[in-house]
């Protein structure tokens, strides 16, 4: 990471000036936030080919708001989610979109996986033709290239600057933000559309693989299925969703009098270099400390920790170990979990969960983790906000965890912008 000395010149400070999102329990930040403060889940009964009945976080956004039917048909769900979120983010930013130089806009979209949905669909289809590959669609390659979701955003919005996706497993949402921040600091673009998307509920393989791993949640009441840190948790609820943020240099944001949601104060990415699926709390703690160090902060400077906790037996414990390692038994820092409401939105999870916390800078409320009826003693966290939102004395700094398979850890710290 480029050095972020304090105080830095405005040209070296990156701020969030627009947020666009779709979550299973709300489209747009206002509705999403309202759901998080009122305990409204977005997890519903769901059925997918071959796997059958399960539960999932399902989005309800109007996919024809920014795309024609032909574009929806030709593209992917991930692309459609990216386009919806990007438009909403640009609208929220109040940028003079028609007149800005589109060659100076960069698109950096995180994905956990891409191409599974489209490949499964084609295989299902050619099964009806005895697997004759003459019936395999010419749309397969443009739909499954790894840059597809970001590329669809570029085509739809006429953005001619750089675009690509970042494959970072479930750390991808944070990775998208970090990449956008870095590109702005390097002067590669003037506006970064950064975030992550997930179309994962449309691939049976994700459900089947988590099930085979013993890591897929099940519950008679779908809204109760996602229960990070609870003693009776039994796995992940897969969700779709997306969040794109408009990032700019503070100097540019100030010059146009932009509304500022928050400032990227620090970030870090590291690797476990260990297991394919099991997380490593020591590396997670190192990642958190690295982000804090770069932000010039101590653990107690953080007001809210937005946890990654997915509801798996092992993962939640490992994250709790890492958090206790950094924060000890401090009650000063509030800790919450957004997956308990919406499930695991995969590539979107990190940035979506951060977005859900951003309004805390204005209302000083910390949304809770829900479905936590009986804490797993191994997941004890001093500052955990359970069941009901908590009014905080101070809400100036949010630290957002996002970890993924193959041992990728990411942390983003956002602080309230005070005009100073």
């Amino acid at each position: 990471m480029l050095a972020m000395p304090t105080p830095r010149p405005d040209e070296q400070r990156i701020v969030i000036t627009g947020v666009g999102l779709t979550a299973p329990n709300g489209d747009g930040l206002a509705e999403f936030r309202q759901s998080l403060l009122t305990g409204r889940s977005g997890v519903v009964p769901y059925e997918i080919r071959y796997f059958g009945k399960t539960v999932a976080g399902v989005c309800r956004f109007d996919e024809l708001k920014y795309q024609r039917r032909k574009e929806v048909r030709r593209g992917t769900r991930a692309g459609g989610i990216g386009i919806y979120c990007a438009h909403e983010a640009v609208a929220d930013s109040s940028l003079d979109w028609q007149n800005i130089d589109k060659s100076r806009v960069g698109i950096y979209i995180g994905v956990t996986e891409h191409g599974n949905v489209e490949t499964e669909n084609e295989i299902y289809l050619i099964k009806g033709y005895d697997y004759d590959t003459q019936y395999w669609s010419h749309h397969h390659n443009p739909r499954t290239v790894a840059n597809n979701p970001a590329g669809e955003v570029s085509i739809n919005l006429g953005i001619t600057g750089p675009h690509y996706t970042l494959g970072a497993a479930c750390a991808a949402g944070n990775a998208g933000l970090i990449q956008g921040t870095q590109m702005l600091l390097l002067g590669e673009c003037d506006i970064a559309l950064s975030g992550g998307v997930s179309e994962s509920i449309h691939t049976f393989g994700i459900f089947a693989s988590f099930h085979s791993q013993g890591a897929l949640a099940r519950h008679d009441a779908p809204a109760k299925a996602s229960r990070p840190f609870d003693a009776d948790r039994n796995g992940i609820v897969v969700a779709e969703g997306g969040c794109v943020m408009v990032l700019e240099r503070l100097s540019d944001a100030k010059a146009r009098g932009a509304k500022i949601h928050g400032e990227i104060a620090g970030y870090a990415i590291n690797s476990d270099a260990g297991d394919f699926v099991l997380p490593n709390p020591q590396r997670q703690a190192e990642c958190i400390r690295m982000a804090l160090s770069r932000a010039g902060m101590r653990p107690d400077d953080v007001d809210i920790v937005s946890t990654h906790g997915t509801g798996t037996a092992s993962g939640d414990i490992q994250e709790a170990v890492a958090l206790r390692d950094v924060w000890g038994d401090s009650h000063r820092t509030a800790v919450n979990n957004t997956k308990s409401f919406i499930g695991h939105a995969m590539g979107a999870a990190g940035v979506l969960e951060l977005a859900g916390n951003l309004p805390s800078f204005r209302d000083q409320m910390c949304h809770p983790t829900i479905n936590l009826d009986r804490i797993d003693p191994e997941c004890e966290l001093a500052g955990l906000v359970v069941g009901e939102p908590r009014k905080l004395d101070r809400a100036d700094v949010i630290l957002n965890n996002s970890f993924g398979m193959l041992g990728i850890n990411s942390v983003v710290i956002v602080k309230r912008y005070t005009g100073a």
Partner: protein
Amino acid sequence: MTADDIREAILEILSDIAPDEDLSDLKPDIAFRDQLELDSMDFLDIVMELRKRYRIQIPEEEYTKLASMQSTVEYLEPRMKDIEKS
């Protein structure tokens, strides 16, 4: 299938691959491309849908025969005359 049946089948395919277009006054003798927003991927969709729905194989060098409704029907009539209307 008769010429009318084939015309109807093509309209059905077009309504699927170009769902935003109004096909009600499509001129038979004017190229699809000059009346509708169709690109090369859409034309490949027409070829693919004919293959899927009617098992009609169209060699690549003959794709140009699918330029307009009239030329498409003329080209397909002898190839689809033995196919039962579904």
